[in-house]
């Protein structure tokens, strides 16, 4: 999910949620975590960020993030480059403690507190030391999880390779002002983005650049990426146009960002942790449930069904890579997920296919949207247990 999407929605919810958050705070001091993990207390005030320790053994770590300030805060763990997000917890209200559970490999990291969630963050270095307990429970499981990671990485790399090719074709048509050609290429190229979006999002910078919706724009941001092109191709009113300079800039940036994404996921040092696979699958469906099912993602083009199918495809690929492990740890969950994926795919198939094209979202009846939403909820609820079933 584009973190900007979530942030905007969550802010709007904050006042109503305050009493709930206060109730949660009551329980914070009794929260317990898994026995083999290290707990690091993080204290955020309006202008300070204090960690109880700046190093911990590699393995499961719990950052207990307490907001003692007056503004809603967020906490990030970045990779040593300070850009790639390893884990994050948003919307920590004043008086509230929330736990962020991470699996840390030995190495250095950057922690960041952001009181006010406005980008004015306070950073510090953090080290995971190699002398800690191994994160993985057994050799056999470790091997299976490594295999899952490799399989899913292969899927991601394949999708990004295709995305790069199709993005180039789209950008060429768009830059040349050939709107008919660009419109015909738009949804088909984005499929490959929507299948792997949580991975792209983990880099922090590429997702906002490539996939920001107009509604997500902040005050200062230049609007680039797919949705700027979308609005140009499906203008809301006659006469809506883009300047030639912006047209070229959008096309060039789409290609450059996508090639950068391709470079990063094919870097031999790039790995996808097993817990990220399961969480990514959940995130894909979360995004489907919040911005696709409402028709907000493709507000101008109406190509939401392509995105939905791609989100489901991506979640299924993630599930497939973990499935052999979960077959042994929780076979009932496998039966449930197989049936629920089939149900969603069957419903989507009544509206078209990626090969043949889908209906535009305005053509889908309200009753059909309710059915789709219910099927997605029925899949998402058990899918939220996938990570734990594979990793714990």
């Amino acid at each position: 999910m584009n973190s900007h999407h979530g942030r905007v929605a969550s802010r709007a919810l904050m006042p109503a949620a305050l009493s709930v958050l206060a109730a949660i705070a009551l329980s914070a001091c009794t929260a317990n975590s898994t026995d083999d993990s290290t707990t690091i207390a993080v204290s955020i005030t309006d202008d300070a960020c204090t960690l109880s320790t700046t190093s911990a053994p590699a393995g499961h770590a719990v950052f207990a993030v307490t907001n003692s300030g007056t503004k809603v805060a967020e906490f990030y763990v970045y990779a040593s480059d300070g850009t790639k997000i390893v884990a994050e917890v948003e919307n920590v209200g004043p008086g509230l403690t929330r736990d962020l559970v991470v699996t840390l490999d030995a190495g250095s990291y950057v922690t960041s507190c952001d009181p006010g969630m406005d980008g004015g963050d306070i950073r510090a270095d953090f080290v995971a030391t190699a002398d800690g307990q191994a994160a993985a429970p057994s050799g056999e499981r470790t091997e299976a999880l490594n295999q899952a990671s490799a399989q899913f990485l292969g899927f991601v790399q394949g999708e990004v390779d295709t995305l790069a090719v199709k993005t180039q074709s789209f950008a060429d048509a768009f830059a040349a002002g050939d709107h008919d050609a660009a419109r015909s290429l738009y949804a088909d190229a984005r499929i490959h983005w929507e299948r792997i979006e949580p991975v792209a999002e983990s880099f922090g910078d590429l997702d906002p650049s490539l996939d920001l919706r107009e509604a997500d724009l902040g005050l200062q941001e230049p609007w680039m990426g797919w949705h700027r092109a979308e609005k140009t191709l499906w203008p809301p009113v006659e006469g809506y146009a883009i300047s030639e300079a912006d047209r070229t800039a959008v096309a060039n940036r789409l290609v450059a960002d996508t090639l950068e994404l391709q470079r990063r996921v094919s870097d031999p040092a790039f790995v996808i942790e097993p817990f990220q696979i399961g969480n990514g699958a959940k995130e894909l469906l979360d995004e489907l449930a919040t911005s696709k099912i409402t028709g907000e993602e493709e507000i101008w083009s109406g190509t939401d069904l392509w995105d939905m199918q791609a989100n489901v495809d991506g979640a299924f690929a993630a599930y497939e890579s973990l499935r052999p492990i979960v077959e042994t740890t929780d076979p009932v969950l496998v039966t449930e997920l197989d049936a629920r994926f089939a149900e969603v795919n069957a419903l989507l198939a009544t509206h078209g296919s990626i090969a043949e094209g889908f209906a535009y979202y305005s053509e889908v009846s309200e009753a059909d949207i309710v059915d789709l939403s219910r099927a997605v909820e029925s899949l998402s609820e058990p899918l939220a247990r996938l990570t734990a079933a594979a990793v714990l």
Partner: protein
Amino acid sequence: MTTGAAGFSRRAMLRATAAGVAAAGVAGAGGFGIGRASAPIAGDEQYAFLGEHQSGIVTAQQDHMHFASFDLTTDSRDRLVALLRRWSQAAATLMTGSEIGSGAVGGPGLLPPDDTGDALGLPAAGLTITFGFGPGMFTKDGKDRFGLAAMRPGQLQDLPHFSGDALDPAFTGGDLCIQACAHDPQVAVHAIRNLARLAIGDASVKWAQLGFGRTSSTTRAQKTPRNLMGFKDGTNNLHAEDSALVTKWLWADASDGEEWMSSGTYLVTRKIRIHAEVWDRTSLSEQEASVGRSKGSGGPLSGGNETTPIDFHANAADGSPLVAADSHVRIAHPSRHDGAMMLRRGYNFTDGTDSLGKLDAGLFFIAFVRDPRTQYVPIQEEMSRADAMTVDYLKTVGSGLFAVPPGIPHGSRLGDSGAFVGQQLFA
């Protein structure tokens, strides 16, 4: 995932962390957090989930309600039974003021919490949870999805169209329903939210209603409350203490037709919007005439106090009846309907304002009756046609009818293969 009887009391947790509450400075919450930490607390009842009848019917009516109606999205009888088992176990846990499953914060960090946590620190607050089965559980679109069509009680007939009905499908019908009532709205909302979550994959919420301020009393000890029209409501209600009347008018019996409904009852819901602005600019005498009672005391216009029997033969000097021919109390009175009584248990509601800036509010009417065909339909039919208050100032926008199965007997064991609400239907 363990779904445990092992649920721990939110209240006990609160006591343990009371100091933490103060330290956390939940200032705005004042009485909310700290007031509740010191027992005993008025209104902090716990009701039993197990019993001959379900809770939330003759229970002294609580002040807040969250009601939800569900569509069954599964066609599997086994899954329906499993859902009713999950719901029964969770309802019993929630009614003790405990978190469901492994709790809101007690489970593994990599799993979503079993309980949503929004009632942490709150007591049981007199929570009752009442389950009902709608017509769609027996047949829907001509299909007998669960092999239950032959068990559909004659009492569970679709309600007819009443004059003036403006039913919105978004507030009407449903295959299943849950009524959660409590002294604290957050406890009621938490219950429905968690039960709805447990249903995902098998049942989906079709519509729901929040209610505040009871509009009836179900025991003699309770004072008669006022509805949003400003009148005392439910004066002539069936009360828990009237055991002979309760037996006669409330609880179904095997001789009524369906053995499985014995000790159960039927639940009618009507979402009734009040034309508030129109009502508010109606003269006091006109308001009182349309109701048939004094707005201040609640006494009948034929004289006396709130509990004085209505004298329908009393006339004014000019010979006109003191209690008008089209007044609400006259049209709805049991004496006009073979003595038929209902146990009313409704709530005020407001859904904010409508697009014209008018108050979107009214009465979420709930009645429990032994037979809707004789105790509800004829009365509503006449009210909708002839009752001045109903015709001129009310609009019904939602409607529902549900069979409320009996309770789960004392001593039953709940859980994965245990007892569940409505088990007699599946025997």
